[in-house]
């Protein structure tokens, strides 16, 4: 029997498990393969929904499903996070003290925000990367009656479109509340344009100009002076604020760093084969890799498609059948009722079109279709 172990029950791990289970239906039934998933939680969160929660467009209950309900029959699921990786023995040890053996393992434990890395950020800024912080941010927005709202962006961060999406959503939020004339929106970005994707930046900067959103580029946050409400950047620039919203710096999961699998919890990963560098039977998915591409759900999705096909092929014919080409697809919400998208891979840059209501409504539909996507059907 081949034992396939998936560590992590987020988007990447879930799509991978379901993709493999469908390809290996007979092997699962006859006991030739076992697929086991270990997760830290029994709930599965639709993380992109946090953006909407922060501006009051959805409520927390809409973010969750039971993880077990998303998995194909035949997949063993345990809420029992891994605490120790014994790669030389092809084993992991979990929080409950159990040991799981594997022939092949996929690690897809995601990332976590790390605002603690910037002095003053935790106390001084609102953010929306957890249910708790998104709700707190919404309550703060609801009580905000005017002033300067500044958005800062740490690197690396999860969801590269989030900085643009939140600034445009804030614009429409304050407009709907009838206080747009009392609010000055100020966007900052770490490199010399308003987004890392050049074509996205070329489209977004004029959009900000049109909406009266100010922006500073080459702004890498160094510290937040909470008492005086001033931001200071590594580049020596100071900006005052009344309300600070941050896209915080992210790290990989602490358990990976503790086990020496990768600096800051990012595991060195082959960019096309998706195996952990130096290990042929350990694969890495989604935010957890150190591959220089977007930390986004769609990245995990396309990587999981590739890996699911390859692991099933390895079981059936002994070798993988394709390589990951770096494909990423990101929706970009441009306020409350328009959206566009960026699609790119290792070789082809994106060419985003003008935002439309149709793409926004497709994104709204995808927010529901996600649960089909997680099942590996879309």
């Amino acid at each position, binding site marked *: 029997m081949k034992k396939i172990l998936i560590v992590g029950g987020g988007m990447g791990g879930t799509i991978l498990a379901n993709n493999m289970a469908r390809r290996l239906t007979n092997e699962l039934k006859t006991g030739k393969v076992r697929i086991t998933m270990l997760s830290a939680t029994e709930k599965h969160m639709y993380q992109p929904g946090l953006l909407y929660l922060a501006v009051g467009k959805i409520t927390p209950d809409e973010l969750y499903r039971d993880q077990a309900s998303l998995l194909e029959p035949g997949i063993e699921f345990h809420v029992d996070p891994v605490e120790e990786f014994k790669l030389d023995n092809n084993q992991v040890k979990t929080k409950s003290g159990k040991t799981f053996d594997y022939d092949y393992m996929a690690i897809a434990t995601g990332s976590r925000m790390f605002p603690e890395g910037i002095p003053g950020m935790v106390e001084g800024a609102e953010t929306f990367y957890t249910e708790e912080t998104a709700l707190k941010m919404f309550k703060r927005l609801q009580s905000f009656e005017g002033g300067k709202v500044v958005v800062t962006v740490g690197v*690396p961060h999860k969801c590269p479109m989030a900085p643009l999406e939140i600034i445009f959503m804030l614009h429409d939020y304050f407009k709907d509340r009838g206080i747009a004339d009392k609010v000055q929106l100020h966007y900052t970005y770490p*490199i010399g344009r308003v987004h*890392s*994707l*050049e074509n996205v930046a070329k489209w977004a900067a004029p959009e900000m100009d049109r909406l009266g959103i100010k922006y500073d580029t*080459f702004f890498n946050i160094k510290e937040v002076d909470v008492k005086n409400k001033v931001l200071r950047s590594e580049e*020596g620039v100071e900006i005052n604020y009344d309300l600070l919203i941050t896209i915080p710096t992210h790290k990989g999961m602490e358990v990976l760093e503790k086990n020496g699998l990768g600096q800051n919890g990012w595991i060195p990963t082959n960019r096309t084969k998706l195996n952990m560098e130096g290990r042929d039977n350990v694969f890495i998915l989604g935010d957890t890799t150190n591959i*220089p591409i977007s930390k986004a759900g769609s990245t995990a999705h396309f990587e999981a498609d590739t890996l699911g096909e390859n692991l099933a092929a390895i079981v059936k014919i002994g070798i993988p059948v394709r390589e990951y080409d*770096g494909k990423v697809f990101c929706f970009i919400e441009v306020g409350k009722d328009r959206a566009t998208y960026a699609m790119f891979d290792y070789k082809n840059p994106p060419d985003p079109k003008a935002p439309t209501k149709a793409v926004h409504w497709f994104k709204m539909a995808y927010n529901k279709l996600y649960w089909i996507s997680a099942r590996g059907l879309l």
Partner: protein
Amino acid sequence: MTEKKIVDGRGSFCPGPLMELIVALKSSQVGDVLEVLSTDKGSANDIPEWLRKVGHEYISTTESNGEWHITVRKTK
């Protein structure tokens, strides 16, 4: 002399080579030398421009077959 650290930003449109460099510098020590690999010709301008603003040292840029190697030193 410390070993040169490679920041492989080839094929990276997002976050891109400069963002990768910013991340790598955060976890480097003062005096460390880093070499950014990029397939984006814009890196040859973007990276030195940012280094001037932030105050790290720009050492050199070389280009071969559409691949740029930009060497920098962390100074603070």
